[in-house]
């Protein structure tokens, strides 16, 4: 605790030591204030992307440099700025204050707290715009990021440093996948975990405040908020803040990655991000292209997502895994923004509405979803157990369509159909119920080795829950063996067969 006398002594000392120096400023005069964009004359030395400050303390960013004026987007309240006001250069590019204190906090894209708690102390100033690490600094993605969702970890595994797009119509569970992934990272905080703990950043772009509050509540209830940061630019914020939010989140992620940590960042959602950038560009009178988006709409997302990397050990060994979310209209993944982001990312998880409506949740379309990193991001255990699952499900989808014709089916086709139904059923998972890898493997091993063929489809869910409880209670050693992630040995397979046979005797 600093005493009053110490403060006064320090102030006096500072004044005595001070040397008067002339200050040179480059200023501008506000000519026009329209829709959150200011046109100002002067500012002849301003550079693109520079932060400027108005007389009332509001900041802005220079986004257009014209012959006779500069265009500035406001990062705060526009109503108090009038014609003739002075705006001055700060000489700084837009940056955000990042430190460990951000963990568990909710901030806006300028780093100001929104959760009503104490002000965040000064840490490192991270620039919002930064060139992505070069090829030499990177390392191939080969460490899994476990989502805890069986369908994803088995068939579309995500690695640390990968960009995996989550795409689908509204209300299909895109944000739910992201939140479940966040919740699952609590398992890697334990000292016994082989994998590094993950810092999670949720960037809310254009969402309702009630939705953001709901998400924060869920993270808190599941003890996930303590290692998470929420960067919020809700729908009531100016388009400028919504435009900056993903860059602010990535800048914070780069701080932790620079300290050797693994970071998971979710951009929810980039469709609204594109809309906010379109709004800003139209007000700045930039030429409109397809669907009224500006010409550099691809670059908007490519430069953002390229910053999600896995660095080699020479550069700290940290990583940023990005899960951008795109909302489609009527399941159309061939629209402008979805195709742009699909071409940037290393795979996509495609959620389909008819699957959702038929009760398959998470409603992942196995045929169109892909992870371009694939098995490199899977443990040998999961790779061995889930290897043939995607093929079986793809065959099931084909045969299911064929079987609707009502003709008599041969025994092999019937068996494949029955197996497919059970595989589809086992992959269903409740929201906020991510599973640790040993339990995922138990379920997937059971279905791919035919141990569920004699269980009716309606009872698969109950079977899975009771089986997990049974193994946890009676055979905890097998959980420890499976936790190692090593490939399933003959002895372990035989042990598992013994356990499931024993369980089935008591299962009703």
């Amino acid at each position, binding site marked *: 605790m*600093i005493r009053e006398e110490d*403060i006064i002594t*320090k*102030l006096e000392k*500072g*004044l005595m030591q*001070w040397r*008067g*120096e*002339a*200050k*040179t*400023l*480059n*200023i*501008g005069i506000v*000519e026009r204030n329209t829709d959150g964009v200011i046109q100002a*004359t*002067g*500012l*002849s*030395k301003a550079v693109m992307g520079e932060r400027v400050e108005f007389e009332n303390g509001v900041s802005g960013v220079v986004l257009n440099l014209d012959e*006779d004026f500069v265009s500035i987007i406001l990062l705060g309240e526009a109503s108090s700025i009038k014609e003739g006001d002075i705006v*001055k250069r700060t000489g700084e590019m837009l940056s955000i204050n990042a430190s460990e204190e951000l963990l568990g906090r909710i901030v806006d894209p300028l780093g100001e707290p929104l959760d009503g708690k104490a002000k965040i*102390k*000064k840490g490192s100033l991270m620039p919002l715009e930064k060139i992505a690490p070069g090829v030499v600094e990177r390392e191939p993605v080969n460490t899994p990021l476990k989502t805890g969702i069986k369908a994803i970890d088995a068939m579309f595994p995500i690695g640390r440093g990968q960009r995996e797009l989550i795409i689908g119509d509204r209300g299909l569970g895109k944000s739910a996948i992201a939140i479940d992934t966040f919740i699952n990272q609590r398992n890697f905080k334990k000292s016994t975990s082989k994998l590094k703990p993950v810092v999670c950043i949720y960037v809310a772009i254009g969402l309702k405040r009630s939705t953001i509050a709901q998400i924060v509540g869920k993270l808190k209830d599941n003890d996930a908020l303590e290692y998470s940061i929420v960067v919020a630019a809700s729908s009531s914020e100016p388009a400028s803040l919504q435009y900056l939010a993903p860059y602010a989140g990535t800048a914070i992620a780069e701080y932790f990655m620079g300290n050797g940590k693994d970071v998971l960042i979710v951009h929810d959602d980039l469709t609204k991000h594109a809309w906010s950038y379109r709004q800003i560009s139209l007000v700045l009178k930039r030429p409109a292209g397809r669907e009224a988006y500006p010409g550099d709409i691809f670059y908007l997302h490519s430069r953002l997502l390229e910053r999600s990397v896995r660095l080699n050990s020479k550069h700290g060994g940290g990583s940023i895994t990005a899960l951008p979310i795109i909302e489609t209209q009527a399941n159309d993944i061939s629209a402008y923004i979805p195709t742009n982001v699909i071409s940037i990312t290393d795979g996509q998880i495609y959620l389909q509405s008819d699957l959702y409506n038929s009760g398959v949740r998470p409603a992942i379309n196995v045929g169109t979803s892909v992870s371009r990193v694939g098995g490199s991001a899977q443990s040998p255990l999961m790779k061995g157990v889930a290897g043939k699952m995607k093929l079986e499900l793809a065959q099931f989808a084909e045969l299911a369509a064929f079987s609707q014709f009502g003709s008599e089916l041969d025994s092999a086709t019937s068996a494949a159909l029955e197996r497919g139904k059970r595989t589809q059923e086992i992959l269903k998972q409740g929201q906020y119920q991510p599973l640790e890898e040993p339990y995922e493997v138990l379920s997937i091993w059971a279905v791919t080795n035919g141990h569920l063929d004699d269980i009716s489809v309606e009872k698969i869910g109950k079977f899975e829950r009771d089986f997990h409880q049974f193994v946890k209670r009676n055979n905890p050693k097998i959980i420890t063996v499976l936790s190692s992630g090593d490939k399933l040995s003959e002895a372990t397979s035989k042990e598992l067969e013994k356990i499931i046979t024993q369980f089935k005797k008591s299962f009703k």
Partner: protein
Amino acid sequence: MNKRLIKKLAEDSYSKEKLDRRKVFAFARVLRRRDLRKYIRFLKNFEDRMTLRVTLPTETEVGRVRRRLSKIFPNKKIVFTIDPTMLAGIRVIDYDNVYELSLKNSLETALDQITSRYD
């Protein structure tokens, strides 16, 4: 009439670096209202570029400062303002460049530097 042409008209309104009133009235008569607004804005801008605004705390130094600044900025019109709150020093505004050498500003900067250490 496009913006570039209006700007050219505004540039041509000057003779020997001074605003020619006859030309200004002649141009103003033929321009439409919207173009006239742009023309006036350009004229104001050019006038700002050719004017040096100097702020001093008292009137006593005006003559001496005018002589010094006329040598440094020979082609500029110098306009003086008196602001006693500056305490001492001088402030010179050359279009969008502000040269702040006032004691008031120096004290405010020192205070900002000291208080920012306690953030």
